[in-house]
């Protein structure tokens, strides 16, 4: 009997990011029951699989610490990390130094490549990152705005953090290409209490579209102040702020028709390679098991683990170096869509489907708010549910 294969899994179970990781226990439970009998690795032998979970407490220092712990003391064969660059980047650095393969997701791929200092001739050797990048998200956003007939003046709300800086670097050229005018007031600090100077600038510049990468409390402060000061935009499209239905519910009418990037949805036409669940089955299983509304994170996290398990199967349960080689030969249909190593814009990046969606209040539906897919320019396989509508 050979030793079980071990997957390290770093996730912000506590701390400010814990809301995004709230579905993790379901994801793990669901997978563990499917893996109860072990997996059949290349060469035909059965191997047990363990997923060793560590909480990084939404703290970059802790992410680095737990990653090192998983690598050095738990001896994991492969690592998974997703949800925010705060979690992913430190784990990726430790994996790279110590030679452990990593499957990561849920932070724009640029933050994981140029953001960490990789160059085309010196790519990262151990990390396979599966997510979208700025060209996908900007195409999606612009597709939404196209539907709303605006003056093409965009006001940017990009904070001074990894993602905000990434957006500020990656977005402007893409906007310019499509003849949008950008009004960028500069990198504000997260959790600022007053946005009146920014609002004044937007008003003065005739902004009709707000786009940004904003925390929920900041968005609320901004949007309320904007209303008080008589500033209305036709489109409000943000990453992060209203990624979850629970937040939209709290904001109530303020969230109506707010648009955002949606990278997984029950109508995605894909299946899990491990459990065989379709996206719709999977979301339903989540709801019946937790009693809460599904969210987009659970699909993506499931897919990172699928990729890791598939890698272990193909490497025959070999050492980390063998796992690395197998990882970079991945070609797997997952619940998130097909993962084909080497297909992305950088050697260690795989682009996954991205749609644009708007929050809509449901009248007496199962949940008070549902995301409606209004754009599929970066996810051609996914059906659109309806046209975009202006914010009120």
């Amino acid at each position, binding site marked *: 009997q050979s030793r079980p294969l071990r997957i390290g899994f770093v996730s912000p179970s506590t701390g400010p990011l814990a809301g995004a990781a709230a579905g993790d226990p379901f994801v793990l439970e669901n997978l563990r029951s499917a893996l109860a009998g072990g997996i059949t690795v290349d060469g035909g032998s059965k191997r047990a699989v363990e997923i060793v979970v*560590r909480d990084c407490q939404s703290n970059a*220092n802790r992410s680095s610490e737990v990653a090192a712990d998983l690598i050095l*003391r738990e001896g994991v064969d492969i690592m998974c990390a997703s949800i925010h660059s705060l979690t992913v980047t430190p784990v990726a*650095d430790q994996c790279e130094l110590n030679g452990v393969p990593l499957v990561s997701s849920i932070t724009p791929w640029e933050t994981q490549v140029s953001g960490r200092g990789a160059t085309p001739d010196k790519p990262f050797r151990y990390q396979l990152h599966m997510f979208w990048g700025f060209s996908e998200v900007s195409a999606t956003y612009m597709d939404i705005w196209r539907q709303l007939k605006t003056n093409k003046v965009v006001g940017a709300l990009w904070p001074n953090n*990894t993602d905000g800086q990434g957006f500020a670097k990656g977005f402007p050229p893409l906007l310019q290409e499509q003849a949008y005018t950008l009004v960028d007031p500069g990198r504000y600090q997260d959790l600022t209490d007053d946005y009146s100077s920014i609002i004044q600038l937007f008003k003065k510049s005739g902004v009709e579209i707000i786009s940004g990468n904003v925390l929920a409390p900041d968005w609320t402060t901004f949007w309320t102040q904007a209303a008080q000061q008589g500033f209305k935009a036709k489109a409000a499209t943000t990453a992060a702020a209203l990624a979850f239905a629970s937040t939209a519910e709290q904001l109530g009418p303020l969230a109506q028709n707010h648009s955002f990037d949606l990278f997984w949805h029950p109508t995605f036409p894909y299946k899990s390679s491990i459990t065989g669940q379709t996206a719709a089955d999977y979301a339903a299983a989540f709801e019946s098991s937790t009693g809460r509304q599904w969210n987009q994170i659970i699909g993506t996290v499931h897919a990172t683990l699928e990729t890791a398990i598939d890698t272990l199967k193909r490497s025959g349960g070999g050492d980390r170096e063998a796992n690395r080689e197998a990882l970079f030969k991945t070609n797997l249909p997952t619940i998130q869509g097909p993962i084909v190593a080497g297909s992305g814009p950088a050697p260690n990046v795989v682009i996954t489907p991205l749609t644009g969606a708007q929050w809509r209040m449901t009248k007496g539906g199962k949940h008070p708010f549902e995301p409606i897919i209004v754009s599929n320019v970066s996810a051609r396989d996914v059906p659109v549910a309806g046209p975009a509508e202006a914010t009120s």
Partner: protein
Amino acid sequence: MTNQTYIVARATTASKAALVIMVSCVVVLLLVPLTGDRGSMRLIVEICYFLALAQMWNLLAGYAGLLSVGQQAFSGFGGYMLFAFVVYGGLSPLISLPLAGILAGIVSLPVAILMFRLSGPYFAIGTWVTAEVFKLVFFEIPLGGGSGMSLPIQAIRDISPTTEGRELIIYLTALAIAVGSVALVYSMLRSRFGLALTAVRDNERASASVGIDSFRLKLGVFVTVAAFTGMVGALIFLQKLRISPGSAFDVMEWSAGIIFIVVIGGIGRIEGPFVGVAVYFLLRETTANYGAWYMILLGLLAIVIMLFARQGLWGFLAERYRLTVFPIERRVRTVEPVEKAKPSNGISDTAISNLSLPPF
């Protein structure tokens, strides 16, 4: 008038024995790398830098009375300087460690001059705000700005070509820093500065009246502590491989955590940080899988200690069993007992006024 002889004693038998134990502990730690257990080595490195930070904060707050809640300014700054030297200066990380410390000492100078205008709670909050300003500054300057930066893997590999060699060097460095921090604090406190420092902490006005230049003294301590803290910070982020304003200047981790360690162990005693660090890691390692529970337990423990044993765990034990490992106090002891003064029998008013009572 008396033929008693007094000596001023410091070491006790217990302290001598304890010192022997300490030295053997260090020797044992030096042998750990032979086992090749990288996980344990990494843990010990972490323990070392927490111990060093705690010793420094204890020197600052426990002995100099400078209750800073902003030491993360210097550990974070040191960490950043490491990255700057390595990434832009092309220096080896090991050489960058002391350089980062020196720079931290230098920037602490103007900070100290500003902060020393404040006292008590003003000082505590003032240092905290200063650390916050450090953080905001690093949000803006091109050392990764708000997103932070990673240390090039190549730079780490330059320390030593093999993983084992690298780990060994970092391990020994950390051990040296920890031992160095204790030695620094201990020798400082045993010297005349120790006297002056406690005097200033207890009563600054009176300390000036006996000739102590409290400003320079505090400045010296503040800068020394900042420099050492900066060096430890550099070591920390050499381990973390990545730095960002949020992680470098995290008040919870680098200030609250350290303060908890010191007060749980016993503030104002060199032994305190040892006990505190032991408790901290014991809690953390046993509750690792329960999220932030170790922080909750640490918080609760700190509350309980403040309520029932303000002098900390070590202080509690030390007072009960008269323990010291690092004797600093000077105790006056009689060496030759003398014959009792002979009792007088008759008492009169004149007899009383002629009595040689202890003078006045």
